[in-house]
């Protein structure tokens, strides 16, 4: 009786898992491995079929200035969006985590951009950034400043996209800080007040350290987002001008679906996978040990 019941446990377990396992293997594990294999093969054409070329694709990637450009852009995009979003998210959470008139409206105002698709956000901001007729140029013309092509100038295109992304993301990160703040005992604030601590001192020495696990969690998510979020490029810039706003995932898309070089796209994807793997390790060793929410 017992051995067969034991066997049934394994069978039942695997039967329950089967649908998920098939889908995950087909769309996560198999393509991951296939990506690595494809990156070792040349681009096939009608005349010359694809053949094993070892690391040749990686060599041409290393020599590809656009690759370094998009990687560099990704770095600046991350550095531009993440710290600002986090500072804003903490500020927003602190501002609405107390009794005040119109609190629910204020919270809604902060959070609403989060619920919109990036494509819609890009549409709205496209008009702000349009040269001359756009809202920003309209306002600056009142002060006698002449129009500027914000998205057409390689110097301003990335900052313009960064500002838009901060607007979209800050409210999302705010809710995690709000959740964390609700677990901070109110006595701490009272004690700091009685001790005569300044508000800034209280924040710096008490609140901010308590929010550290949340900050790490948000940080990891924000870094991941900075690599996965490229929707806005389709509407705003298509990666231009001259790749000044191009990001890694968008370049992968271009390589595969505009230049039809799936093997080079696979090579680029391997870099993205490696970056994600590093992030996963950081998360595993840094984050999981320090979060104790409930």
């Amino acid at each position: 009786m017992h051995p067969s019941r034991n066997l049934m446990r394994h069978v039942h377990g695997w039967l329950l898992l089967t649908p998920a396992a098939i889908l995950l293997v087909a769309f996560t594990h198999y393509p991951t491995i296939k990506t690595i294999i494809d990156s070792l093969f040349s681009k096939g054409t009608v005349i010359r079929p694809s053949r094993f070329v070892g690391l040749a694709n990686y060599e041409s990637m290393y020599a590809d200035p656009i690759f370094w450009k998009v990687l560099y852009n990704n770095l600046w995009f991350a550095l531009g969006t993440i710290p600002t979003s986090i500072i804003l998210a903490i500020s927003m959470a602190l501002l609405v985590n107390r009794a005040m008139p119109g609190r629910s409206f204020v919270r809604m105002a902060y959070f609403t951009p989060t619920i919109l698709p990036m494509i819609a956000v890009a549409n709205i901001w496209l008009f702000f950034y349009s040269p001359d007729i756009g809202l920003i140029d309209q306002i600056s013309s009142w002060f006698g400043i002449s129009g500027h092509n914000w998205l057409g100038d390689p110097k301003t295109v990335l900052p313009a996209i960064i500002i838009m992304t901060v607007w979209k993301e800050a409210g999302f990160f705010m809710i995690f800080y709000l959740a964390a703040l609700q677990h901070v005992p109110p006595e701490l604030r009272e004690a700091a007040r009685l001790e005569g601590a300044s508000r800034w001192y209280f924040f710096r020495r008490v609140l901010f350290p308590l929010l550290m696990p949340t900050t790490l969690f948000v940080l990891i998510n924000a870094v991941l987002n900075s690599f996965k979020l490229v929707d806005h490029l389709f509407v705003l810039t298509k990666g231009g001008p001259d790749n000044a706003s191009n990001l890694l995932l968008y370049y992968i898309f271009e390589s595969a679906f505009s230049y039809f070089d799936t093997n080079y796209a696979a090579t680029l994807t391997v870099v993205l996978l490696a970056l994600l793997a590093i992030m996963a390790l950081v998360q595993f060793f840094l984050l999981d040990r320090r979060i104790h929410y409930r």
Partner: protein
Amino acid sequence: MSVTTSKGWNFYDTLETVAAWVLALLWISPLLYAFWAAFHSGEYAIHFDIFAPLTLENFREALSQAPFLRYGLNTFILVTMLLSAQLVVGTLAAYAFARYRFFGSNVAFALVLMQLMITPEILIVENYGTLASLNLVDTIVGIGLPYMASAFGIFLLRQAFKSTPKELEEAARLEGCGMFGILMKVYVPLARPTYLAFGLVSISHHWNNFLWPLIITNSVETRPLTVGLGIFASPESGIDWSIISAATLLSVAPLLIAFLLFQRQFVQSFMYAGIK
């Protein structure tokens, strides 16, 4: 000393309320501006005039230039189908992980969690190839298929199932419930908050998803709203800004209205899903 700082705290309270409001108005203004543009004729998009006449012309124009209602239907079918599949697949897998210590379960769980990092949008190139060989390019099923097993859903449900008291399962077993009976009568009802949280997160994620649907669809019959909007508003289309605003509002309206009505549930779901 302590009296003055205490006063300082009160003064700053007022200051903070003002700051909160200023920031809130600043934050909501791009959206209010899109509303303004959508409900006024083109010339008022730039020249702000509080007495400008309201109009629905932009919405009519947007609807006549692109089949947004069809796109909306496609999105609705996609989101509904996808969520149902995710819930069924996820419930079964989560139940296995929570209650069956089967051979290889730890390794299998680690492999499931891989999808939290390597989401399907990273693997667009290979997944396109797979769907082409399954003849599912340009179908709504094709948009949803790579997402139907959600590691995130499996993870959340496993947590919920694990916190279900074992005694309830024993009681149900004594009453003659089988494996599926126990799952449906004990575990699923008790995990309702988790289902709600995952459902809202999944719906808003896939309502807004763009890159993969863009790649895998190429006809009006399959395109979801985001892709339709992206094509409609691309810089080379040269369409009037007011009409683009109207189209944008049309595309986000269902989700935005749902969010405004069920704000608390949405925010709590996002919070809950992020923290777990």
